[in-house]
Structure formats: C-alpha cells, structure tokens
C-alpha cells in the first residue's frame, strides 16, 4: 500500500502543478466583490418588497378561507413538482396530520423543475383536494456554516403552525426546541438525494410552538447551525415573540446574588425579550432586552461586576476568559422556556479590557463570544 500511496502523492503533485490561474484573477475578484455587494443591496430591497406583498396576499388568503384549511399554503399552480421526471428522490412521508378529523399524509420531496437546483416541495392530500408548496434551496447552502439547506414555515390559518426543512449530509440530529422549553428530536427521513434528510413538524397553534432548531453532526455534540424561528419568520411566529417585555411572561428565573446578602437577580423571560432586574431595595432598575438569533441571545452588565446573559439551549458551558481560559461552568435551562440564564462575576467594569465570555457546545466548540468592553452600561 505504501508504494501505492507514494505513487499517488507523486501523480497528484504533478497533476496539481499543471493547473494554471489567470494573471488577472485579483482584478476579477475585485469585480465579483463589487457585484456581490450590489446584489446584496438589491436583495435587501427585494426582500422588503416581497414581505409587503406576502403580507398583503396572506391577509387576503386568510380572509378568503377563514383559516379553515389546516395545512401548508397553496402552490402557485403550473407543473406538479411531484411529477416523476422532476423528482430527485422518492417522495417521503414526513408526518401524518389530521385534517378535518381525517388522518392525512404530509409528503415532501426534492424536485428540480427548472434544472437550476433542487427545491423542497410538499403536499398534503386532503380528502377533496391536494395543496402544497415549494421552497428554494438557501443561497448559501454550500457554506459550511449552513446545515439547514431548505427551511419554510406553514400556517393553516389560525389553527396550525408548521415547519418543513431539509438538512445536508453532515447532519445526524436536529433538536426542535419549543417555546415552552420542551425539546423534541426531528424525525429525519432520507431525502433520496445526496444524503440530505427531510423533516416536518406541524402543531396546533394554541399549543407549544417550535422556537429554535439546532443541527448536530454527530454524537460528540458538535453544533453545525442553529436557527431562531422568530428571527427567521418574524415576531408573529410566537404569541409573545415581540421585543417589548409586555404581556404574560413565559418564565421567571431568580438567583441570590453571588456572595451577596440577600439581593436577588431576577430575569423575566418572554419568547422574544427578557427583563433583567437587580432587586436591590430602592435602587432597583430593570433592563428590557430583545432576544437575538445568536447563541448569546442577550446580555447586560448589571452592576460594576456582574454580567447577565440569556443563552440558547444548544450551549452547554460558558467560560469567562480574561485570558487565560477560565473554568468551564455548566449552564442549566430555565423551566418553561428554551433559554438558559447565566450570571457571571467579572472584573470591575472599568477594567473589562480583553475579558470575554464564551459559550460552548458539548464538544467544546465555541458557539459565540462576547467581549465585555462591548457591553453598554446598564
């Protein structure tokens, strides 16, 4: 085998040496960067316009159907993506739904109707009619940071909320975190094409709803990507998804202040926001923060040497690095919500310097980091 390996090395080197690059590659790259930046600006404008159109059209559909269909939105017509010549793999039964009291199959498949790449399409065969839709592949699906190559939401009027997704070949497990703190593992089904896997979850709108998806590559707990569904689908995705700290809270967390004499830190959580209070007699003040899509969803200095942060469920540990690396401290979930709360003792605010808080997954991979000197004063 060593002879084979040596020969392979030699031939690969010869093959590589024969590849030439254009002398104007750098100029070409400058041109592409400029074009990319123009496209991104155009995409933002187009997306904003599309959101307005979807909101207007969505409003009309809800009015027309009175929210009674109980399944994913209707397709725009034309060719059926489930026609065999378009399919890249066999249709997959991703879940069974109950539509008008009748058990109904929810099917999904990867379909390429235009030769421009696979779309994730689904349909629900109701008793009297079929309906479904297609979702294009994420533009950055080949980016290593992207594991959810297709992701769409569905809403059966006011009755149901659902997600349909496809993940790439690296993904072994997907956690679906609900807004009440429950977690369920996605039932991944082979997509029949390039080892992609598909899953769907449709739930009654008046029960717990999916809030966050986390994709893992293997049993080591290496997190590939997490998606905050409020960030993806808008504040209306969850009943208390706004950033305003108003309405009925989903959970409250309290902790005696470290080394203190009875003062409490109080953290009140909604699905999209958090209110942090240092319950210290007359000087008590509250800070309302919107929860972001990153693993370190929100943070604030509480007084001169405490930092409070709200952490996503895929994080297992945090460290305060000053440097050198600090000790890993486990994180624990707050009952009634997917979020975790940490209260860390840190140096005096005036000497935050290079101190950072890092959050890690169970494979010790750094998920997110916060340099303390970026924190605003409370």
């Amino acid at each position: 085998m060593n002879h084979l390996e040596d020969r392979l090395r030699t031939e690969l080197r010869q093959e590589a040496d024969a590849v030439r690059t254009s002398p104007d590659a750098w100029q070409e790259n400058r041109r592409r960067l400029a074009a990319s930046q123009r496209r991104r600006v155009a995409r933002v404008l187009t997306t904003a316009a599309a959101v307005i159109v979807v909101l207007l059209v969505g409003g009309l559909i809800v009015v027309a159907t009175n929210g009674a269909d109980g399944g994913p939105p209707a397709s725009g017509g034309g060719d059926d993506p489930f026609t065999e010549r378009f399919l890249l793999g066999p249709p997959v039964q991703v879940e069974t739904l109950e539509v008008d009291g009748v058990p109904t199959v929810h099917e999904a498949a990867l379909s390429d109707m235009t030769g421009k790449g696979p779309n994730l399409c689904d349909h629900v065969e109701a008793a009297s009619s079929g309906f479904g839709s297609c979702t294009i592949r994420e533009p950055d699906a080949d980016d290593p940071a992207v594991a959810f190559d297709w992701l769409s939401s569905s809403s059966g009027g006011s009755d149901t909320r659902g997600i349909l997704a496809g993940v790439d070949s690296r993904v072994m497990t997907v956690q679906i975190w609900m807004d009440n703190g429950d977690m369920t593992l996605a039932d991944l089904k082979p997509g029949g094409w390039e080892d992609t896997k598909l899953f769907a979850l449709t739930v009654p709108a008046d029960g717990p709803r999916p809030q966050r998806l986390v994709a893992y590559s293997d049993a080591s707990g290496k997190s590939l990507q997490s998606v905050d569904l409020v960030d993806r689908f808008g504040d209306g995705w969850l009943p208390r998804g706004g950033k305003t700290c108003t309405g009925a809270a989903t959970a409250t967390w309290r902790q005696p202040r470290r080394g203190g004499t009875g003062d409490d830190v109080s953290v009140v959580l909604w699905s999209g926001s958090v209110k942090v209070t240092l319950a210290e007699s007359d000087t008590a003040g509250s800070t309302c923060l919107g929860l972001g899509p990153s693993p370190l969803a929100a943070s604030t200095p509480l007084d001169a040497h405490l930092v409070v942060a709200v952490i996503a469920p895929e994080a297992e540990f945090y460290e305060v690095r000053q440097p050198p690396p600090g000790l890993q401290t486990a994180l624990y979930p707050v009952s009634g919500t997917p979020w975790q709360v940490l209260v860390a003792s840190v140096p005096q605010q005036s000497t935050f310097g290079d101190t950072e808080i890092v959050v890690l997954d169970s494979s010790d991979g750094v998920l997110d980091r916060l340099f303390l000197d970026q924190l605003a004063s409370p």
Partner: protein
Amino acid sequence: MDGGGAVDDGTVDVGLRYEQLFHGHFAAMTRLAAMLGADDPEDVAQEAFVRLHRRTGRLRDANAAVGYLRTTVVNLTRSRVRHLAVVRRYRQPAPADVASAEIAVVRREGDRELVAAMRRLSPRHQEALVLRFWLDLTEAEMAESMGVSRGTVKAHVSRGLDALAALMEGTR
C-alpha cells in the same frame, strides 16, 4: 479598504488581510478545486473568496480563514459536480465541450494512471485521497474540510485506497 487590500470596514480581526490571503492562497484553492474534479476550478476559487469576504468579521484568524476557504472549495466543488450530474440527467447530450486551458494541460500530461483511476471513485473518496495525499492534511483538518467526523475520514481514506488498488489491479 486600503487600495482594495485589507478587509473591511473595521470589522475584521487584526492581521487578517484579504488581499494577502488572496494572493497567498488563490492558486492553491484553484488547484484544490481542479483536483476534486471541478469543471471550472478558478470560478470555484473565486466564489470561495467572495464568500470569505462576506464573513471576514466572524473568523478568528488567518488560519481559520484558510480552513474556511478549503471547506468552501470542497463544498462548492461537490455542489458543482452534483449539479452537472443533474443537468446531464435531464438534458440531451451536447456537442463536446471545448476544454478550458488548464484542463487541456492536465489532459496532455495524461499518463497519470492512478489519478485517472481515482476519478472513478466516489466524490467522498476522491476528496479524502486528495486532502490526505496532496495537501497532507491531518485527520482533524480533513474532518473540518469534509464536514464529517475523524472516524469517517479514516474510513474514506482506507476504503478509497482499497478501491484504488482494486481498480489498478483490474487494469493489469
């Protein structure tokens, strides 16, 4: 941006300079794409750098940037090869392509039997052999580039070599 070199707008880590990275690694990334079977390796490498440019503020350092580039080239090439397979599946055979200059050069020097045999292996096995025996990457670096575990890397290398040996045996 000073003369179009450093990236970008104050959001990038200290020391990570895009232009230096480009000049230092563009040829290597083009070669990697070619070795993995991309039909237009330079286009793949260009796209990888454009994506790196979008993310420079989120990368730890230059080493992380090179790792990111390598992984992106592997993924983009895989996607290109996959897309070509889909196109071939649905389209009538076209007249033979005019080969690009670099591919033509490779073909003229085409006595490399092992590389020719390697092209018949699965994309994953090809990736594993190229990363291991051309780039001399460690298993951890290969795992990162291929988006799989180290155990899977070992398996791909071992099975790739076995398959290659079997193919060579069959040609004798």
